[in-house]
């Protein structure tokens, strides 16, 4: 009886095409009511796993049970009453209306000779309302937008009254808003009706947002299985996706941000030029990203540890001068920053707010000007100056008199940075 608690139980599942094995020894138990995502690079066996689960592709070894029933003993109609599938995209050359498409969810149940029963229509109507397509139920399916189509297909899956829904990259063609909307429908379904949902997704962040459990596939095996924080780690993702990936927690929403690390493009204008960035409080994020894209190498500081700018700079491989979290800049940190800035050809000031704690950062700019290095600053310091007696604004005014350049936008600032060209190589 214990088995009945599982929606899917796979033991030693092997499957492939010809001699090429795609799935090798997959063991997975998914309890009923779970909301779970299967992740992994292209070719890891995710889609084949779904095909095996739905009986589209034969097993070469192992066994699969769905809700305690061995898969190979289920008839097509019985299987359709347990599992519904929402694929990436459904197209039909025939102009079925939305309501007609949703009614197709009941293909395995519809009576052969008579009209669909009142119950059938009731289920369809409920599915239409649930996914918010009731208002367009008479429109031809092929005329709908991507989001509407996908909601219609989910309604069709609901009309199947399944206990398990498999979503095969069901949101990957949708824009960010519709993607979220579709996921919310699925989440609500999972919470309210206890339908088990298993989704394949390439959007690691979205999967981490909505799922309690992630399963990472790699080369036909399960490489990791657990809560998002345990599966989405830099090391695991790097070994599976074969490229450096950084996982950060977003400071505002607490969601996980997963991004491949930018590889510096050596052919860009910034090649061989080093910039020192004075930032803090998230003000440097965009500028640093642009610098890295343009191929500049850069150092940053003084920054407080734990600041989002610090995380970004670390991710992008910058050398840092750091101070303890929430502490004013001390002599040791400023000395390190001065050393870093001296190794750079340019010093850049982002739109960081100033208070008594980070005023010493302006020393870095003064030092650079004294040594004849260009200094660029983003405009608008007046509005973010919280230093006593507006010291920061007044000091920056002085710096401008000494040759510092104020730039209105980041793009403007990047344009004023020195570029690598033969004539400038001798004169840094």
């Amino acid at each position, binding site marked *: 009886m214990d088995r009945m608690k599982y929606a899917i139980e796979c033991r030693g599942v092997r499957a492939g095409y010809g001699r090429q094995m795609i799935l090798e020894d997959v063991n997975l138990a998914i309890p009923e009511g779970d909301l779970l995502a299967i992740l992994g690079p292209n070719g890891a066996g995710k889609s084949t796993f779904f095909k095996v689960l*739905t*009986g*589209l592709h034969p097993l070469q070894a192992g066994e699969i049970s769905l809700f305690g029933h061995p898969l190979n003993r289920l008839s*097509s*109609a019985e*299987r*359709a*009453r347990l*599992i*519904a*599938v929402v*694929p990436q995209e*459904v*197209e*039909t*050359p*025939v*102009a*079925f*209306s939305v309501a*007609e*498409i949703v009614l*197709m*969810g009941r*293909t*395995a149940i*519809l009576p*052969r*000779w008579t009209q669909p029963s009142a119950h059938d229509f009731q289920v369809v109507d409920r599915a239409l309302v649930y996914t918010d397509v009731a208002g367009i139920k*008479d429109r*031809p399916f*092929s*005329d709908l937008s991507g989001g509407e189509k996908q909601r219609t297909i989910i309604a069709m899956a609901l009309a*199947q009254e399944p206990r398990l829904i498999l979503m095969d990259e069901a949101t990957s063609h949708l824009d960010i808003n519709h993607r979220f909307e579709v996921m919310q429908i699925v989440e609500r379904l999972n919470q309210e009706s206890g339908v088990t949902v298993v989704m394949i997704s390439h959007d690691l962040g979205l999967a981490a947002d909505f799922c309690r459990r992630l399963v990472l596939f790699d080369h036909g095996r399960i490489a990791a299985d657990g809560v998002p924080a345990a599966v989405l780690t830099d090391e695991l993702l790097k070994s599976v996706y074969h490229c450096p990936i950084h996982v950060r927690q977003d400071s505002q929403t607490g969601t996980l941000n997963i991004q491949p690390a930018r590889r510096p493009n050596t052919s860009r204008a910034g090649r061989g030029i080093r910039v020192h960035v004075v930032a803090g409080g998230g003000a440097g994020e965009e500028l640093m990203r642009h610098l890295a894209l343009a191929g500049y190498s850069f150092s940053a500081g003084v920054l407080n540890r734990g600041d989002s700018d610090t995380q970004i700079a670390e991710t992008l491989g910058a050398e840092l001068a750091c101070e303890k979290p929430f502490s004013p800049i001390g002599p040791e940190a400023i000395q390190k920053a001065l050393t870093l800035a001296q190794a750079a050809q340019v010093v850049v000031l982002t739109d960081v707010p100033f208070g008594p704690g980070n005023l010493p950062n302006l020393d870095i700019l003064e030092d650079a000007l004294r040594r004849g290095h260009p200094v660029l600053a983003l405009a608008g310091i007046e509005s973010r100056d919280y230093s006593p007696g507006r010291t920061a604004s007044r000091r920056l005014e002085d710096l401008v008199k000494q040759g510092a350049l104020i730039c209105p936008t980041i793009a403007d600032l990047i344009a004023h940075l020195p570029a690598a060209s033969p004539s400038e190589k001798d004169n840094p």
Partner: protein
Amino acid sequence: MSTPRFKSWCFWGLVAGTLPILVVCLLLGASGAGLPDLQTPAGMAILKLRLGRVLAGFIVGAGLAGSGVVLQALLRNPLAEPYVLGVSSGAGLGAALAILTGLGAAIGVLALPLFAFVMACVTLTLVYFLACRGADEPSVYGLILSGVIVSSICSSLLMFMISIAPLEGLHSILWWMLGNLQASSNNQLMIAGLLTTLSFFAVWSLAPQLNALTLGTEMAHHLGVRTQRIVRIGLVLATLMTASCVALSGLIGFVGLIVPHAMRSLMGPDHRRLLPAAALGGGLFLVICDAAARTILAPVEIPVGVITALLGGPFFLFILRRKRGPGWIG
């Protein structure tokens, strides 16, 4: 235009209109409009003759349109019809064999439909396995491509047989190739009617599965359809319908293509309603065409295939032009 209410109106209008239209066509003939004098044996004979033709026209039109609907759904292709898959040409070749070898006369009335069906099945099997190319299921493009090829081979064989046929056989085979609704015997009419009716109801019972198959075989599989089985059954039933029609009336084109499209754009693509609508519409279409063939140049009779093509061609263009209608899209 395409509200569910409008579609319903169209459908029930067609159902209600069928019988009156058939009666009107029964009253038209080469001997003039109106009921012939039933007191005379000649009048009775004329009525019987017209009744046979109206029945044959209805059966053949319904069968061709029905199998067109089925093939279009199974192949997810608006151009699919009995001719495209080579089914008609195969059946035609079989019928020509029966006529020319004299086997038809030797075996009896069943020989023509039997030969037509056997040859249609042979061509369909050939087309099916050519299209499979080692895979379990044939691809749609494979089916259409091999259908066109096999169909043209059958046509060449037919041409070859015509070229070596004796003169007396030539006329009957030519007349038959142009399409002719004058059944040679009541038995033949009954057999074709029975086979077409049975296959039609069998196919109608698959309507929900046909609907699901238009979403593609994988999606249909997820909806609980045993796709391979349904595709095979559907192909065989469509072949049976086509073969019995071809054996009865010869090669009448366009019905299997136009009628399904027209019905779909009027009543929507749901096969539970589309199949009976296409059968009624196809039947009426051919009966009307035949009435026109008998009366326009009376007493000279135009081959009905000429009329269907002359009416059907422009009508098909009209349908293609208003592409955004609720028929096929893209």
